[in-house]
């Protein structure tokens, strides 16, 4: 197949993240089992070593732990030049959130659009953990969205490759530990409305994306507000 392929690999630290898999300990010390992970990436941009760029024509990509293929993003028209960096947004831009019913990857039937307060949910993670009291099904749930300032939750991410790569397939990691391991669940087990807490969570969602350690001499993922 001509063009380029970006594969995103869901992990928790170094362990592949499996839906309903055995519990894994986060950096915050919680043993978590993930029952849902969905995240919107905006259109990708490939930055080549010669200073040119390639813009992905897709409206968005919905990564969903229930759909293995959703983690593979094909860019059949992208040229075979060495890639210096990959850039994308984590989350959907505000024009889509205010533009009424959208289609394709943005179809509200996919469950990533809020009813009571219009706008996309940019990322969802749910699961259970013994850190949570039994009375609430030991559950945690983060539904992160909101497009209005000052609590917008879309985050631009730019990941420079440690070494420019001509490879047809580039593999990124989405490390759920950067999200769930940023704070103990006992402190914050649930954020499901736009606001300051969601904006803080959005930084963690964006921080999940990085190149694998083998490819990266130093961690180079950067997420900016």
């Amino acid at each position: 197949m001509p063009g380029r392929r970006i594969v995103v690999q869901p992990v928790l630290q170094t362990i592949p993240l499996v839906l309903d898999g055995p519990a894994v300990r986060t950096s915050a010390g919680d043993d978590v089992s993930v029952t849902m992970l969905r995240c919107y990436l905006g259109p990708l941009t490939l930055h080549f070593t010669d200073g040119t760029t390639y813009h992905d024509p897709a409206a968005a990509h919905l990564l969903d732990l229930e759909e293995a293929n959703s983690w593979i993003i094909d860019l059949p028209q992208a040229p075979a030049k060495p890639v210096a960096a990959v850039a994308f947004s984590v989350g959907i831009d505000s024009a889509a959130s205010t533009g009424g019913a959208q289609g394709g990857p943005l179809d509200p039937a996919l469950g990533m659009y809020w009813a009571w307060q219009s706008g996309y949910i940019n990322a969802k993670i749910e699961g259970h953990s013994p850190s949570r009291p039994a009375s609430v099904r030991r559950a945690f749930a983060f539904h992160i969205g909101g497009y209005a300032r000052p609590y917008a939750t879309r985050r631009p991410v730019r990941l420079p490759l440690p070494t420019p790569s001509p490879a047809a397939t580039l593999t990124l990691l989405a490390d759920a530990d950067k999200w769930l391991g940023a704070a103990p669940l006992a402190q914050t087990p649930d954020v499901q409305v736009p606001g300051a807490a969601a904006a803080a969570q959005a930084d963690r969602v964006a921080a999940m994306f990085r190149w694998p350690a083998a490819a990266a001499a130093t961690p180079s993922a950067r997420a900016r507000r």
Partner: protein
Amino acid sequence: MRAASRWLALAAASLTLLGAVAFGPAPADGGPVPLVQPAGWPRPTYDATRNPLTGAGVALGRALFYDPGLSRDGTISCASCHLQATGFTHVDHAVSHGIEGRLGRRNSLALVNLAWNPTFHWDGGVNQLDVQALNPITNAAEMDNTLAAVVGTLTRSRAYRGQFARAFRGDSVVTGQRVLLALAQFTSGLVSYRSRYDKYVRHEAGGEFSAQELNGLALFRANCASCHREPLFTDYSFQNNGLALDSQAPDAGRAAITGRAADSLRFRVPSLRNIERTAPYMHDGRFRRLRDVLHHYTAGLHQSATLAPQLRAPLRLSPDEQKDLTAFLLTLTDHDFLTDSRFAYPGAGPAFPTDPAAIQPIPTP
């Protein structure tokens, strides 16, 4: 005979004036229909270029609006709480009941002139007509369903697939987006602009006001119109209109959406069109009668930090003035809208097509 032809001439003149009427005459081919733009009104906020109205799209939206198959257990349709005869709201229900008799939290809003709304719901949380329908479909106290499940149900219906193909350029695929767009095609056409008040301001036949109604209009303009602005009878703002907080069902209103303390206890200023039919009133349906509403504004205002400035002092209206004001409010009843056959239950609908073979001729004696 002469009277009839004069009436026809007047009707023709008013058609020209309006440019288009409601959806316009439904074209037999299901083709494009214009959204009504009554004379003297602002432009609609709904961007119909994104969702061009067609006869087939409106027909599909109407079928969906009246189909209880949208709810999880097949018992509740949009029309369950939005009845045409009562201005597309739920008469006699302070709050409505969804599936399994579950009670909602707020009074069902009248569906009227939605194409002019900048926001939707009592708290304005919804920013587009298209996506409004997600709420009744998914709210646990209403239809308690998912849009994905609705798409599944409709996809299994051959008749609905045919309707989607007619509405969406020959493509029968049912998607969440198309369900929402079709519903918006129907609901955006629910335009009320033919009340006696409208005929009065347009100087049309049937628009004569009595002295009492004229005085009521003057009182309305002096006391109510700053928020209930003509011709849509709302300025689309959110206001605290002095209702005492219900301690058993506290509701912060707009603040729940914006997170701003200044929006506490503020709710949408509702349109007053068809107010004669849309009781009970207020976001929680606490007032059953118009005179209860007038009593509230003249003698029942509850002071609080976010109370609308216009209501810091009660309205001063004598009993006679209250009668006159009420007489004016009754001129907002739009009988043509309330009985328009294009908005009514479409019959058994496409989900249950009549099988001609099942119809037996009646034997002659």
